[in-house]
């Protein structure tokens, strides 16, 4: 019991750094969730291009980023690019790396969902006189977003959990600060247990928000 008391005293003393790390985690999470979704939509749009070469390049992009570990990409940019004279901040590397990776996954979810759209609706939109971009924006995208919602929300959860790897490129987010705390008080079990519980709490909040969003954007009436 005394052990836990002194542990929480350590946490309390280190609280400003932990809070700062948590803020950095949430900042990165919020940015890559938005940029990853926008990037995924752009990649998805390119994947529907009538131009065969554009489609192939897009497929190559998706395969490359899904097939490459994110940490390799982050190290390549953070440790590799300076050798070519390009220096990026840890946050910039994290945002760019995550965005390219998450965009590929989101595009894949959207492409799978696209197969669930009735082709006659797209033909009807063209027959009404909508442009290609309007058909995408008004018919294709709203439906694919709805159909891909479970995959997209799972990706949001992964964004939060995976953000913990960016401590490896010197971005001082929550996990990095908890590691620092563990290195100070040597209470590894307690520190990482607390770290896991905080991530679980954050993920639970994201799950609740995601399920609420799914219910809102996917009314029972248009599920079939």
């Amino acid at each position, binding site marked *: 019991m005394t052990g836990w008391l002194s542990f929480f005293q350590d946490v309390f003393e280190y609280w400003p750094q932990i809070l700062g790390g948590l803020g950095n985690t949430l900042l990165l999470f919020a940015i890559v969730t938005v940029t990853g979704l926008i990037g995924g939509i752009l990649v998805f749009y390119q994947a529907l291009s009538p131009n065969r070469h554009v489609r192939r390049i897009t497929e190559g992009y998706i395969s490359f980023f899904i097939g490459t570990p994110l940490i390799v990409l982050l190290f390549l940019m953070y440790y590799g690019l300076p050798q070519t004279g390009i220096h990026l901040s840890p946050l910039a590397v994290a945002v760019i790396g995550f965005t390219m990776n998450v965009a590929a996954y989101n595009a894949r979810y959207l492409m799978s969902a696209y197969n669930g759209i009735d082709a006659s609706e797209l033909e009807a939109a063209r027959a009404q006189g*909508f442009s290609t971009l309007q058909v995408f924006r008004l018919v294709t995208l709203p439906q694919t977003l709805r159909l891909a919602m479970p995959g997209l929300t799972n990706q949001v959860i992964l964004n939060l959990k995976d953000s913990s790897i960016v401590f490896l490129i010197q971005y001082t987010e929550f996990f990095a600060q908890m590691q620092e705390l563990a290195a100070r008080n040597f209470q590894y079990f307690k520190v990482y247990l607390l770290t896991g519980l905080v991530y679980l709490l954050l993920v639970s909040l994201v799950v609740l928000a995601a399920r609420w969003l799914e219910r809102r954007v996917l009314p029972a009436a248009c599920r079939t």
Partner: protein
Amino acid sequence: MLLQVRQLTKSFDDKTILRGVDLDLAEGQLKVIMGPSGCGKSTLLRCLNRLIEPSSGQVIFRGKDVLQPGTDVRALRQQIGFVFQQFALYRHLSALHNVTLALRKLRGMSVREAHAKAMHELGRMNMAEHADQYPAQLSGGQKQRVAIARALAMDPAVLFFDEPTSALDPLMSREVVSVIKQLQLDNVTMLCVTHDPFLAKSIADRVMFLDEGVVRAEGTVAEIFGAHADPRIRDFFAHEHSAA
């Protein structure tokens, strides 16, 4: 003449679907195009608004050949209402929003104007009370009536129907037939593709018989459905009659 088609052909790779089709459609006329499955009926309809690009020929709509380069295809399509076999309603939108979407995004109407116009057209189709329902909540006949309201809302010069009753049971088919008859009374110009003799007999001013991409005959309902000289046409109707 609202629409004149001359020597229209369409080939996909080495397969020719339409072979020199001629067609005239006058203002206020309802012409039915019949023929066996795969004869090119639906392809013909899609060539007329360039959902499918014809290989050669002329499509003269309101005096202008719309196959010429420089034609504003989107403007052309906005003048042609299209009703599909499978209804093709946007399933993420309510019946009302299915009708208002093009009014707002293509005609630039305000929400209020588009709403009023859509409710008028839905009312005309006896669908006003279902305006807030989604396609999945409607019967087949109701969906088709919303699809017709969506097409009519754009005040098209002509309405195209592609097998409007083939996805419906007989009761719902009769609903759609009565709607088309009402439009006929309102002097709406229509071109309807079907292989349903009941529908053709109920609504057609004139019937065109298409077979293997060629117009085999054209005439009144009595001329085409009677003891026609062409054995292919006689066989078709004998088969359709026994199938029904």
